[in-house]
């Protein structure tokens, strides 16, 4: 099956590490030009080199996710550099970890607002694309109680509702919007890698609930993401796909 991504232009927020990076490089492998934004300049440079290794163009900006204007500027610069945009993946996240008040603002800005800002800037270009698609990366932590009450889980839940409404709103414009809910995912430098060592009881508690007794790998998440974002999924919109190796126990009707 051809995903139909060759020659397309894609942007991935938070595309320098983990799941975001895996999505970005897989899109490049499928023939997309790929733009990324993230905090660390070094990681951006390394990921861009990997993207370009697939014979496509890359673009990237180091920015703080809660700096709204920077996110918007990156999105505009991306569209200008590539001469348009076909695929937007919103994967940037502040991560979890605490329920302190300031973290609610942080998660709100980075997980939720970076997505809405990027979408707003990308909209005219996605509309012009004819096969535009948006993929919002939420989390399985939005769907079930997970670890502890915290901003991360609630903001990831907000993304699900927003993406569904966006899907209906954008469908007449030819833009598909889908949502992805990864389960616990392990990769070098992942927060789970840290939790495994630094808070081993939390880690083993989570792993016990995973029927396969292992966490997902970034590429296992990225494969589903790239399919949803690609023209191959042209009749899929407003969907929320859980990719968690069977972690969640609730039945989705």
């Amino acid at each position, binding site marked *: 099956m051809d995903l139909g991504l060759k020659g397309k232009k894609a942007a991935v927020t938070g595309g320098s590490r983990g799941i975001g990076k895996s999505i970005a490089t897989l899109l490049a492998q499928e023939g997309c030009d790929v733009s990324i934004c993230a905090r660390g300049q070094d990681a951006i440079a390394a990921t861009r080199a990997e993207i370009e290794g697939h014979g496509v163009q890359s673009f990237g900006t180091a920015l703080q996710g809660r700096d709204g204007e920077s996110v918007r500027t990156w999105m505009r610069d991306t569209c200008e550099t590539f001469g348009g945009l076909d695929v937007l993946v919103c994967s940037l996240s502040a991560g979890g*970890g*605490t329920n*302190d008040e300031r*973290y609610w603002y942080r998660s709100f800005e980075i997980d939720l607002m970076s997505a809405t800002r990027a979408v707003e800037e990308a909209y005219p270009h996605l509309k012009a694309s004819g096969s535009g698609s948006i993929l919002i990366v939420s989390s399985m932590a939005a769907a079930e109680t997970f670890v502890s009450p915290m901003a991360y889980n609630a903001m990831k839940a907000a993304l699900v509702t927003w993406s569904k409404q966006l899907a209906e709103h954008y469908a007449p414009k030819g833009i598909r919007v889908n949502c992805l809910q990864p389960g616990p995912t392990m990769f070098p*430098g*992942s927060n789970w*890698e*840290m939790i495994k060592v*630094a808070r081993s009881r939390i880690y083993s508690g989570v792993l016990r609930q995973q029927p396969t007794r292992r966490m997902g790998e970034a590429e296992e998440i990225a494969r589903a993401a790239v399919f949803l974002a690609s023209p191959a999924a042209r009749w899929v919109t407003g969907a929320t796909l859980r990719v968690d190796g069977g972690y969640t126990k609730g039945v989705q009707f």
Partner: protein
Amino acid sequence: MTIQRVKPGDFTKTPVEKTDDPDFGTDVIPKERYTSRDFMQKEWDRLWTKAWLWGCASQDIEEPGDYIVTSIGKEEILLTRQPDGTARGFYNVCQHRGNRIMMGQGNATTFRCNYHHWEYRLNGEFENIPDADSFPQGKPPCGGLTEVRVQEWNGFVFFSLDPDGESFDDFIHPLKEHLGPYHFERMVKVTDWTVEWDCNWKTSVDAFNESYHVQGIHPELLYFIEDKHLQIDTYEKHNRYLIPFATISHRVNETTEIPHLIKHAMKEAGMDPADFDGRVSEIRGALQKFKRENGPAMGIDYSELNDEQLTDDYHYMIFPNITMNTHAEDLMMFRQRPHETDPDRMYFDVQMFKLLRKDEERPRKPRNERFKHGERSMGLVLDQDAANLPGVQRGMHSAAFDGLWLGDQELRIRHFHKVLMDYVGQD
């Protein structure tokens, strides 16, 4: 990832120069030092009765008449504050029939033995002997309690059982200059535990003299400290390493989320992790800057400490048995004391001190709590150390083990044994 260190020319009062690593060779450290009763006796004769030893905190005997009883091996020492403000120490033994005189700590106007109520003044002289005329030979000619040498420094009281030994200044050199800037005398004691451990006192000293074991038994700390690339300095008797805190080990990958121990350190300083936009590896420097700027508002005086002292652990060993985890706002001190008779047992004293912030109420003075290993938790990291040591001690007795096979990261252990053998003389 490179760790920023204080550079030549940067402000510091505590010396930060790296000392040349001495060449102590690579020989095995004989295990008998940890297991032999003969060696234990030599230690008593040549070390414990000769060296200066940490006795108590000055605040344990704050007011005239305050006293505290500490022990080393078979001896108990009564440390007390005099009306003129000086500290003095005496063997805690009644000259009549040898009974111990005081127990624990408290305040007294005289020291009175419970047995026949022989009574001594705060300066040790006889005050009253009931029915004194029933002793045809008169009072013991010593005139009262037997005094030991006492020296007070930086909030601590040291004593020496050797009336003719070296001066305290010579003994402690060069640590006065090193530790003075921390002003331990401004800190208040918040924890006072004595734990009986099933190992030799040196097995415990060794456990805190290297950070090579962090990747072994304290994996959590890899997300809070740099455990390998640290500076080791050895002096005449004492030694230290400077270990970066509030950072992550080179052994692990940098995460996007701030590890919980680092978050905790930020919050303690009043720095909100949610508002920090940099990378995890940038926190240590940012936290130093934040503390420098916000310390005065919190009522904490950092003016004599260099930048890295604001986050790191300048980890000192005061020979023979004091481990000091020094931090800008607190001190976690361990004292390792030998058992009275058994080389396979010891007393592990934990004393923690902290600076009070502005308007922070002084907590109640802690009572010395005594327990055995495993009876209660001392916190995850110390529990991990404690759980490990009986197994080490047991292995020392194995026919298949000759002694300690030490690497470069364990240089402080070699240095400790060098100084130990300077005192003890022979295995």
